[in-house]
Structure formats: structure tokens, C-alpha cells
């Protein structure tokens, strides 16, 4: 088989399954009875809920204890994340910091940075945004033009980041900037900087999405000073760091559960005696979901072994996002009329569905990554 297509059969270990019950009990207790769940990880921002997760040790689960982590396995983290998403818990506040910024600091940050940020993140008190895309750099990430110029003791940053989820309510952002002029090697001369979103020289402007929500933003940096201590990793190593970060970003259950509530409401709408067509649709969607879970758990196993499953993650995300869209579209065609819950769910999913195959790497970029894994590029 081709490298990148090898998904070892992987079973969740007993301790991970034990955790599942605890998460379910916690969610049942903490969410109000009239709570309208949504399994999209970008929906539902609740610092209070994130803090409670932090108290339970469910943020930064795999990190070392000396940085506030739980030294637990990627399997345990997998179970907690999928249970929270399936229940539609409001997880967006801490999501990026837990999934991505924390592990990035752990891999490339200094001891001091880890001490400073990781314990706060793990307590559910400190939230991060990702600063990659720019108005003129979307999928072509290496073309970023935000510049950081070296001055005594630090860097002066000028430029604009865009599509920055929750920048208006998060604490920090890690941005990809050019620290050297562009050269023949497009991937050289890029660096990552950690910046206080409420600091001087940073302006956050909301962008309304087509669903009416204001989750993402434009973030403008004007002569923003960044201390040398806030460079993440080696100056010039930004491309390698960003690439490794995307492995974490792409393989998790949030990449196939965004529309899960539609399936739940469809099952509710058709009742326990579905027509053959309705049953077949439920079964088809279930067969996809069960398979995607197997793949995602297998990737958790690769992360647990210290691997860097770039191609596998791209595959899970690509397949998962297509499934999320399929779910909404197929259920729509068979939805019994006059069911308000299901209609509400469908509408919400449809309005957000364009973002499924864009955020975290477009379908086109992911297929390119997979094609490279197949040796075609």
C-alpha cells in the first residue's frame, strides 16, 4: 500500500472508554435542558464551560503535567473531543488553543513560553486564534506578506490577517510572518510570532458571515512591537512549524461531526419505523460515520506514537468534510415536512456548509496533499 494510506486498525484502550461515561455525565449535568446543540466546533463560545472542562483536566490532556497537562493519551483526548462535539457542547473558546496552539508551543516553544501559556490554556482561561490567511494569501500560504522587521529586543509587525476565528474574544494569536524578503525558496524566511490580541498596534474588525454570525475577523497589525521572547520556534522555520501544526488541525472528529445533529433530528423525525428509503439513508450515513471514526482513531494512534500523519490527516479531513455536506443534502431530500427541529438544524447546517470544505485547508489543497502522498507531484 501507498505511504499515507496505511491506517492501522486501532482500538480505543479501556481507559479511554472509561472516560467516555464521565464526559457524558458531565455534559448532561452542565448543559441547560433547553440547550440547542450544534456539533460544529466553531459554534458555541462559552468561557465558563471551557473553564469547567479545564477543571476536569479535559484541556491540554496530552501535555506534560509540569505545564498543567494531564499526560494522558491521544486516545483519551480523542474520546473527550468526540463526546463534546456529538453532544453539541460549546467548545469553540478553547478549541484552537487546545488542539493547535498548545501543541505548537510544546513542540517549538521555549521553556518560558510553555510555562507562561500552557497552564493557563489547560485551565480553560486562555484562548488562542490562528493567524495564517491574509487578504491576498488564502490557500497559497507561502505568499504571506505580513512583515516583521528586526529591531532592538524584538520585531515590528505590519500587515493584515483575515478569517481569524474568535479574534475579537480570544487572548492571543500566533501569526505567520515574513521575517526575510522573499527568495527563490518560497518556504524560507517565514516565522511565527505570538501576539497579545489586546495589545498596542492590533486592531480587530469583525466580518459577518452569510449566516449572520460574527465569528471571524480581520486583524490588522500596525507597527506592532513583538518581544524577542514571543518568537515561536526558530526565526525562519515558520513553514515547517505551520505544516506540522496542520496535522493536528485536520484529523480530528470535528472534521466529520459538524452536521451530526441533522442525522439525530432526522432519526427523531422518522421515528422507530422508518420507510425502506429512510432506513437506507440513515444506514448509509451511519456507515460513513463509523468508517470515518475508525480512520480518525487510527490517526490518534499515529499521533500517540509520535508520528506526523500529514497525508492521513488530509484524507480524513477531505472525506469528513464531503460527508458533512452529503449528510445535509441527502437528509434535506427525505425530510418529512413540517418538522421544525429538523428544519432548523438543516438550515443551520446548509448556511455553514460552505465553510466545511474551506476552513483548515480547502478541498483542493487537501487533494493536492494527498496527490503528493501518492507520488504524483
Amino acid at each position, binding site marked *: *500500500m501507498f505511504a499515507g494510506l496505511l491506517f492501522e486498525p486501532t482500538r480505543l484502550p479501556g481507559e479511554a472508554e472509561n472516560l467516555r461515561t464521565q464526559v457524558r455525565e458531565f455534559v448532561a449535568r452542565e448543559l441547560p435542558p433547553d440547550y440547542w446543540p450544534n456539533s460544529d466546533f466553531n459554534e458555541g463560545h462559552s468561557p465558563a464551560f471551557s473553564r469547567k472542562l479545564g477543571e476536569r483536566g479535559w484541556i491540554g490532556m496530552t501535555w506534560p503535567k509540569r505545564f498543567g497537562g494531564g499526560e494522558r493519551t491521544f486516545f483519551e483526548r480523542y474520546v473527550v473531543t468526540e463526546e463534546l462535539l456529538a453532544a453539541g457542547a460549546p467548545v469553540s473558546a478553547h478549541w484552537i488553543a487546545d488542539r493547535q496552539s498548545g501543541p505548537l508551543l510544546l513542540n517549538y516553544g521555549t521553556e518560558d513560553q510553555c510555562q507562561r501559556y500552557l497552564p493557563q490554556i489547560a485551565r480553560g482561561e486562555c484562548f488562542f486564534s490562528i493567524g495564517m490567511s491574509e487578504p491576498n494569501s488564502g490557500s497559497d500560504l507561502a505568499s504571506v506578506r505580513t512583515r516583521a522587521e528586526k529591531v532592538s529586543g524584538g520585531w515590528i509587525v505590519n500587515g493584515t490577517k483575515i478569517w481569524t476565528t474568535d479574534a475579537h474574544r480570544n487572548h492571543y494569536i500566533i501569526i505567520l510572518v515574513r521575517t526575510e524578503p522573499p527568495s527563490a525558496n518560497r518556504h524560507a524566511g517565514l516565522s511565527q510570532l505570538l501576539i497579545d490580541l489586546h495589545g498596542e498596534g492590533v486592531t480587530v474588525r469583525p466580518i459577518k458571515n452569510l449566516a449572520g454570525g460574527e465569528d471571524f475577523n480581520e486583524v490588522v497589525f500596525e507597527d506592532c512591537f513583538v518581544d524577542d521572547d514571543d518568537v515561536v520556534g526558530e526565526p525562519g522555520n515558520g513553514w515547517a512549524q505551520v505544516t506540522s501544526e496542520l496535522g493536528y488541525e485536520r484529523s480530528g472528529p470535528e472534521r466529520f461531526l459538524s452536521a451530526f445533529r441533522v442525522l439525530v433530528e432526522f432519526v427523531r423525525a422518522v421515528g422507530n419505523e422508518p420507510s*425502506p428509503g429512510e432506513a437506507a439513508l440513515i444506514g448509509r450515513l451511519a456507515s460513513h460515520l463509523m468508517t470515518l471514526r475508525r480512520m480518525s482513531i487510527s490517526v490518534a494512534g499515529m499521533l500517540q506514537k509520535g508520528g506526523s500523519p500529514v497525508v492521513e490527516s488530509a484524507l480524513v479531513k477531505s472525506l469528513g468534510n464531503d460527508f458533512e455536506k452529503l449528510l445535509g443534502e441527502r437528509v434535506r431530500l427525505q425530510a418529512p415536512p413540517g418538522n421544525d427541529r429538523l428544519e432548523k438544524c438543516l438550515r443551520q447546517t446548509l448556511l455553514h456548509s460552505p465553510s466545511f470544505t474551506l476552513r483548515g485547508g480547502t478541498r483542493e489543497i487537501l487533494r493536492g496533499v494527498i496527490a503528493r502522498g501518492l507520488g504524483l507531484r
Partner: protein
Amino acid sequence: MDRMIADTAERIFSDHVDRGVLDAAERGEFPSALWDVVREAGLNLVGHPGSGTDGGDLYGLLTVAGRHAVPLPLAEVLIANSFLDETGLTTIAVDGVAPWARVADRVVTVEGEMTVDFDVAENANLAGESRDRVQMRDAHRVDVPGQLYERMALSRAALMAGALEGVLAMAIEYATEREQFGRPIAKFQAVQHNLAVLAGEVACARCACDGAIMTLGSANFPVTVAAAKARVGEAAGVAAEIAHQVHGAMGFTHEHSLHHFTRRLWAWRDEYGRETHWQEQLGRRVADGGADSVWEFLVGAG
């Protein structure tokens, strides 16, 4: 799956399954030379109690066989030998149809009727594989393992998972060699993206099978098999379509070997329940538990 079995099978099938063998089998000639080699290597007993191998090895071997489009009734032989004493070639019949009944020593039905005395009318599926009609005489009851129909359905899923890997390899090789507009067609983004989709389906098929193999013998087996047969069947359709598109008109010829794999995919996805059958089975079970247990059900099934 045991590495040594996989390597042995890979070597034997690479050496002994060629275009000549495939075409002869399609004309109705049983590949007895290949059968002898398989028996000498003991591959016909993989999964047999006391052989030191298990169900995982059995389905793993079928995946390797699928990758080579092996024209033997290997699924039937292995699964029959997993619960009967081995006596020559035993084939398994469903709805009165059994692969290679014309050369079989015994026929056993999925319902558990067995006989050595039967009439055969030669017949083939759309891949040209022997699917003989059998009329059984003097049949007697034998103990068959529970979920035998599901075990057979998983055999088709495992064969398809292997054939899908073969199809992907062929499509990549062809796209890398075939030049148009002055470069290999693999360099065109449109082709790359189609191959990426194909690769995704191949990976899904393997994982769906693994999910079912992991629950062998448990109460969840019917659920994971339903998911596997449905999902792999869907993958087979998508993958065959893309593989042919990549191969262009050449792949539509009888001369090219691609059809030995794609026609099998089209045939196997229909055998032992096509996608809608298993989707409906699975969907009813999900719906049975009610909306608020959908997640619990999916996780519990594995």
C-alpha cells in the same frame, strides 16, 4: 494479519495469477495449477481451527487475493474450512448459486444444508466468474457458525478492499506513464484530484473492513459488517468510475487488464447484499434505539 501469510500469498498470486489464467478462468476452465499451489502452501486452511491462524488472517488473505483478482472460490473454501473438516474443495451456495460448483467436492448452503450429491448448471457473474446454479440432492444439516451470511458478506467486502488497492495502483501507474500535451497526465491537477478521491475511497474500504474484522464473533458483528459492505460497495462504484476515466479508452478495451478488477468490483458489490440492503439493515438498527441514542449506538458498534 500474519506477515508471513501475507507475503506467501502475495508471492504466489504474483507468480501464478496472470492474464492467461484470468482469461482461461473466464472461459470456464478451473485454474487447477493455481489451486494446487495454493493447497501446497496451506493457504486453503488459513482460518481453520488448529491451523494457528484466525479470522483476521482469513479476511487479510482475501484482501490479498482481491488485489490480484484471484480466480478461485477462495472466500468459499476458507470460510467452509473454518467450520468443516477439510475435504477437497467445498463451495458455499446462496440462493442456489455457488462459485465453481462444477469442480467442487461438496456444497454447503448459508442456511446449513450440505451435500456431495448435486447437479450443476454453469453460470457466471458479470465479471465472468463462475457462479454455478446448483440443485442439491440428499442434503443434510450441518452446524454452521452464527452470522454465516454476514461472514460471507464481509468476504466480498475484503475482496473488494483488495481489488480497490489494485485498481488504485493501476490508475497511478497509467497516469504516470501516459503522456498527453507533452507531459504525463498525472501532472494535471484535474487528474491528481480524481486520483486523490480514488485513494480516499480505497482507504475507507480498508478501514471499514478492519472495523468489521475487529468485531468478529461479537454481537456487534452484524452491525459492523452492514457498515463495511455498504461503505465498501459505495467505494467500489466511485473507484471503478474514476479508474476507468483515468485509463481513457484503453481501459475500456478487453485487451487491458483493468476490467478484470473493475468488473469484479461491480459484481462483488451486488453479491451477499448490495449497498441498499445493508444500509437499510443498519439504518433500522440505528432508528430502533431512537434519536437520542444514535451517537451511543454508533460508538458502541465500533
